């Protein structure tokens, strides 16, 4: 199967259209709940197979390259990555791990002394962000598997993939036409949200601080459960001793960096290196990473279409070259061209400005003397900022350190090279999506004599 036509991007709508779409979807809740979970797993598996077929996605890749500013080669890699998360085995395992049983969405399951059942919330709004292609498939997969009906607000800065992905779902299962709607309106148009919220049973939000705050306000006002995937950042910690051959390690870090051009919440912004021998381990990692990023650039080139990126990278390279060069605190390793990759080797741990600078294959590598220094650094973020820690890719084996790091707010520990594609059952923002998008119900075990 291929796209008969290129994806239709929905026109921007107002309140009346949004309400009409919600009212059209609402009757579908009963039908959605009546289908077995296996139906949705099979559907997503088939959709994943479609997208992993280069022929199927060929017409849309150039459009995505233009809208994301990523090279076509990188877009292909990103679609391959997200397709791997849509296999039936992966999703079934995710349901088992997150909900405890794959059957709990279909029927009552036996638990010690009682029976348990999960129900969908009903009509779900997906308020998507456009910073990474993976957002739309993940959000829709969570919504479908939990048997919700789904009203999708596509991001205005990258509307194409969300629309195309929803279209691919409907091409496999046209019977879902009244259970899935894809709409577009300006994120700043509060009137549409205000009109919609009274009709919703749940919201899953992806995006920045400001939009999350306004969505949270509406959710509280209308008592709508909110699953918020607000802004976060991630990092990597190499808790020594380093292997003799750093190439594999650096390749894994580079692939974490390159995916989504480092704009996802799961993208590493900096690499901490426990340096028993001082600066040299970090320097060795920085140099190995530079080599890996150079190879990655050949495989997944940087597109020259984003003017803002070129200027941003040039200014940041310049700034850190001067700041670190003058203080003797580090140096900048960078591609010969102006923006393909930049590795900043710095004895100064990243501040907010450095974390902001670390997108578009721009990363800090910083030596740390001990786990305690890492924990002190994490502690230096205020209580409210610690909820911004997303993934820590960890190479080491100190479980006490991991205990403290998670107590400080790190949401998930990952292997290197797997920051954006964790094993099924991995936590997300301190919880499970499938749990949050369903309600849990119990009833006495009829085989047990309850007084």
């Amino acid at each position, binding site marked *: 199967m291929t796209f008969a036509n290129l994806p239709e991007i929905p026109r921007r709508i107002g309140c009346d259209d949004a309400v009409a779409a919600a009212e059209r979807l609402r009757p579908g809740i009963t039908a959605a709940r009546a289908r077995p979970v296996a139906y949705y797993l099979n559907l997503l598996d088939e959709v994943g197979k479609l997208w992993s077929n280069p022929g199927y996605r060929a017409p849309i890749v150039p459009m995505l390259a233009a809208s994301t500013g990523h090279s076509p080669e990188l877009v292909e890699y990103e679609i391959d990555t997200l397709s791997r998360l849509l296999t039936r085995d992966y999703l079934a395992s995710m349901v088992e791990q997150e909900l405890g049983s794959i059957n709990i969405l279909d029927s009552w399951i036996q638990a010690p002394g009682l029976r348990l059942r999960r129900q969908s919330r009903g009509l779900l709004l997906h308020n998507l962000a456009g*910073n*990474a292609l993976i957002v739309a498939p993940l959000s829709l997969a969570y919504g479908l598997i939990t048997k919700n009906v789904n009203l999708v607000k596509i991001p205005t800065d990258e509307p194409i993939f969300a629309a195309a992905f929803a279209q691919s779902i409907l091409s496999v299962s046209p019977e879902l036409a009244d259970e899935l709607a894809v709409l577009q309106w300006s994120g700043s148009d509060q009137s549409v949200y205000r009109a919609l919220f009274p009709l919703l049973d749940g919201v899953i939000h992806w995006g920045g601080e400001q939009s999350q705050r306004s969505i949270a306000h509406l959710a509280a006002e209308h008592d709508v459960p909110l699953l918020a995937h607000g802004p*976060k*950042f991630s990092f990597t910690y190499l808790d020594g001793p380093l292997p003799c051959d750093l190439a594999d390690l650096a390749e894994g870090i580079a692939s974490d960096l390159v995916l989504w051009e480092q704009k996802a*919440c799961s993208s590493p912004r900096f690499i901490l290196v426990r340096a028993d021998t001082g600066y040299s381990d970090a320097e060795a990692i920085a140099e190995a990473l530079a080599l890996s990023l150079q190879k990655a650039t050949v495989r997944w080139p940087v597109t020259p279409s984003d003017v803002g990126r070129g*200027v941003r990278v040039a*200014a940041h390279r310049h700034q850190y*070259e001067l700041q670190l060069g003058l203080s003797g605190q580090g140096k900048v390793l960078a591609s010969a061209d102006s923006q393909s990759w930049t590795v900043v080797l710095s004895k100064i741990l990243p501040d907010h400005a450095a974390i902001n600078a670390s997108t578009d294959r721009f990363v800090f590598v910083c030596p740390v003397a001990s786990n305690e220094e890492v924990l002190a650094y994490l502690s230096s973020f205020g209580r409210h900022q610690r909820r911004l820690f997303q993934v820590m890719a960890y190479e080491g084996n100190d479980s006490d350190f991991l205990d403290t790091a998670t107590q400080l707010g790190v949401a998930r520990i990952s292997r290197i090279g797997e920051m954006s594609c964790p094993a099924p059952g991995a936590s997300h923002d301190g919880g499970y999506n499938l749990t949050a998008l369903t309600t849990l119900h119990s009833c006495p075990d009829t085989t047990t004599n309850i007084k």
Partner: protein
Amino acid sequence: MILAPIETKAIGAVGNTSLKEERFIDDLRNTLTGTVNECEAYSLLCRNRHFNPDIDLTTMEDAVRIPYITSQAFKKSVGLFPKLLRIPVSEIDLWTASSSTRGDPSLSGRRWEDVGTYQLAYLSLFSRLFGNEPFDTSLVFWPDPAVMKARSGNLYGKPVEPFALYIIQSERVTHDPQKLHYLMQPNKETLRMEINLPILLDRLREAVHSKERTLLIGSTPLLYLTLKDHYDRTGETFDLGSNGYLLPGAGGWDGKKGQVNISRTISKEAFVSDMTRILGIPPEHITDRYGFSESSTMLPGCYDADLRDFVYEVPPWAHALVRDPNTLEPISEYGKEGLLELITPYGMSTHAGAAVLVDDLVSLVEPTNSKISGTAIRIHGRVPHSHKAGCGVMFE
């Protein structure tokens, strides 16, 4: 009016429309060599780029190799501005601050002689645009520089003052000082700065009646908004005719300039058309200028009806390069947009601003316009800084 002394090197160069290229290169080489010797940051950049001005700068073709400083490096938030000095902080006279549309000003440490050199470069623009005859009346859409100076801050023991203050201070272009009117004044009730409309209208009517040679100068958004809104409300026009001249102020076409934000962009074509209609002045008397606080030169701009845009002339005491925003390599094609690098050796005795790369998109203009003999550029606006942060954090 130049209120500060002039740098010795700039005498005979800045304002000299016949400046020889050989002199410019010699002065540039000397400035760069001095900067390398006195500014550790610039020295580091030259070392890293393997550039020695004494050896590597012999013709204008070599200018592309000069290490530039990005305007970002001068930002207060970056904290590098004291490192970009050629002299100790104790020896500068002030920090000159950019207008800071985004709330993070660029800071350049200067001595008075560099300020004076900038004023000289700026005033030379007036003779280029308006000839040498003084004006009878000047209506200035800025505050009185004395008010701006009173609001100055202090950093490392030195005053921080808006660079615009010294530009405005030099705009004393009338015979009679009493006929220079700073229109942006504090409202007596709200204390907010706003344009004094009664004075503006009164002076305009008098200028028409007395056929006075009149200059309207200052903030682009304020100038446009005030005159356009008055016209839309009342339909009143002012027939200044060929006695009227207009010089809006250094940017602001996006509706923002310093603390002013009118929340809409201003089309240059609509600006010229509306001002021609409202003030009755010929389009060729509507001019513009371009500059930035990290550098020490200002480019005069004339309206080109065919391009429906202002075209800015690079004076002989400066050199402009347009760099591809993606590769940062120089662009020589006319019309292709790139980043502007402005190079000048004058007024640079205290900070490393001889070659500054800014995040404004510009393009070279084909020299078919007979009014412009040297390099000319168009300004297309700031590089878009939209960044898809989404669920990836960007700290405020």
